[in-house]
């Protein structure tokens, strides 16, 4: 029976179900087919695609690389974002201007900025090696060596997304209660102790939320990699999404890439759930 309460929920719910759920179910069906360049359409080949996923070293390596990249970039973003938020939290000169400035990178389009970063990291014509050479360093093979390319992607990710951490953490700091700080001041606690015993514990819920959101977004990374390094050199910066993209939309192995993407999705959901539980237990000291 339809009543006014359904007027509110149903339009959104039906839209999302129609746009997301059917494609997802379709992907499940496609993953059991041999759909590729030569044979298009839905046949049934059982779990053969899935067996191939488990034997595909390139996929598992991309997953390892993705984990390393996500964990490193999110930890850096969190640490730097928290430091920046603390630095502008209390009155500083030009605080307003700094806050706006620090937010800007997250408003910019990742691929557009990656086009710029590519010129920044250019080995012979870019400014980074030019500046480094003034200090007698270099030339650093930023985009043409495995380590250099990985670090370049890391730098761009930190530049782009530290503002998001800064935004969440500063908003959290602004709404903290005043009383615990009075108590700490009466106890004569210094800056350092006040941070670890008052600020950090009070910020734990926001910390968890911010880390999870960023890990979710970081696990999907592909735009930056596509423009900056195209996964290269070799496969040095190839993330899982990018590898699945190559298999699916470049080699047109539709069936196989469907299987890959579902395995990837399940691994993401499981590992993010575990990480969320671990964070809750260590930072808040309880389950759920």
């Amino acid at each position, binding site marked *: 029976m339809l009543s006014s309460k359904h007027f*509110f929920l149903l339009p959104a719910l039906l839209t999302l179900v129609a746009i997301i759920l059917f*494609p997802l179910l379709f*992907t499940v069906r496609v993953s059991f087919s041999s759909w590729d360049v030569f044979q298009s359409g839905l046949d049934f080949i059982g779990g053969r695609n899935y067996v191939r996923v488990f034997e595909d070293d390139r996929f598992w390596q991309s997953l390892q690389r993705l984990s390393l990249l996500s964990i490193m970039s999110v930890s850096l973003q969190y640490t730097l974002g928290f430091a920046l938020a603390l630095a502008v939290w209390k009155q500083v000169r030009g605080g307003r201007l700094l806050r706006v400035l*620090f937010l800007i990178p997250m408003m*910019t389009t990742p691929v557009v*900025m990656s086009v710029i970063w590519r010129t920044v990291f250019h080995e012979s014509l870019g400014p980074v090696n030019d500046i480094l050479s003034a200090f007698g360093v270099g030339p650093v093979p930023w985009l043409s060596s495995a380590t250099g390319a990985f670090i370049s992607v890391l730098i761009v990710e930190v530049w782009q997304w530290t503002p998001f951490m800064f935004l969440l953490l500063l908003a959290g700091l602004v709404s903290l209660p005043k009383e615990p700080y009075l108590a700490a001041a009466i106890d004569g606690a210094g800056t350092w102790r006040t941070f670890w015993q008052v600020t950090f514990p009070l910020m734990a819920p926001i910390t968890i939320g911010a880390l999870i959101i960023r890990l979710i977004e970081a696990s999907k990374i592909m735009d930056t990699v596509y423009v900056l390094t195209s996964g290269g050199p070799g496969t040095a910066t190839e993330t899982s999404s990018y590898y699945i993209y190559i298999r699916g939309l470049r080699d047109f192995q539709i069936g196989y890439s469907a299987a890959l993407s579902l395995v990837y999705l399940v691994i993401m959901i499981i590992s993010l759930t575990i990480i969320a539980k671990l964070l809750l237990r260590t930072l808040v000291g309880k389950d759920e």
Partner: protein
Amino acid sequence: MNKFYHTLKTLFLLGWSIFVVFPFLWALSTSFKDANAITSGATYIPWVDFEPSTQGWTSLFTNGSQGINIVGPFIDSAAVTLIASLVSLILGTLAAYGLSRFEYRLGFVKNADITFFFISQRIMPPIVLAIPFFLMLKELGALDTIFGLVLVYVALLLPIAVWVMTDFFAGIPKELDEMAMTDGCSPIGAFFRVILPNSVPGLVVAGMFCLIFGWNDFFFAFTLTFTETQLLPVSIVSLNSSVTPWWSLSAFALISVAPLALVAIVVERYMSRGTMSGAIR
């Protein structure tokens, strides 16, 4: 705070500010260069290091072999982003209000599960949906159209709108609705006459996040449009892989990121007022 801390803090803020503005300044300087100023190695300051030229900027507004017109992609990007954000905001606000005020039940599925269903869509990697979206839009004849992209972007942005607005409505006391309803409003009337006018801060925050994620998406535009509809991120990437000179690329990049950089000013205002804290938990 002692002097050491203070110096450290100032240096840190200064260093980070330089890091943040560096790519923008570099792009700005590059956009005024010509071939000589680029191929001779890194140069920085116009008139001192190189003789500025405006060809990077003029090439964006001319057609033909020299030009790479930015106007078309800009309009397409704006249209897709604005329509999709508006639709998501309307649907998302209604749903969020429903979820915060009424009880829904479908078998074992309750309000919390429905909210989770909405928000959990953010976990979905775009690549998982890309191929089915491609086939679905092909079926609908909506590939390479603004309509097709709007459809996909609504799925992308709706979870964000629901997420921000659910938290926002949780902070508005239910007495406000009840008062309106004892005054003779229907639940729907109460929502439009009383709740909605009081929800502007939440709507602004949700709307901004929709704009950011819509304007900045590359992957779906890249896989679902080709020539008829072209968004800014896709155009710049195709320019990047051809032989487009750095000065045009830089000017193009600066124009495409400019509109949202202005959004940062609005976000800052809401954030420092503390209005944001409820919305982002």
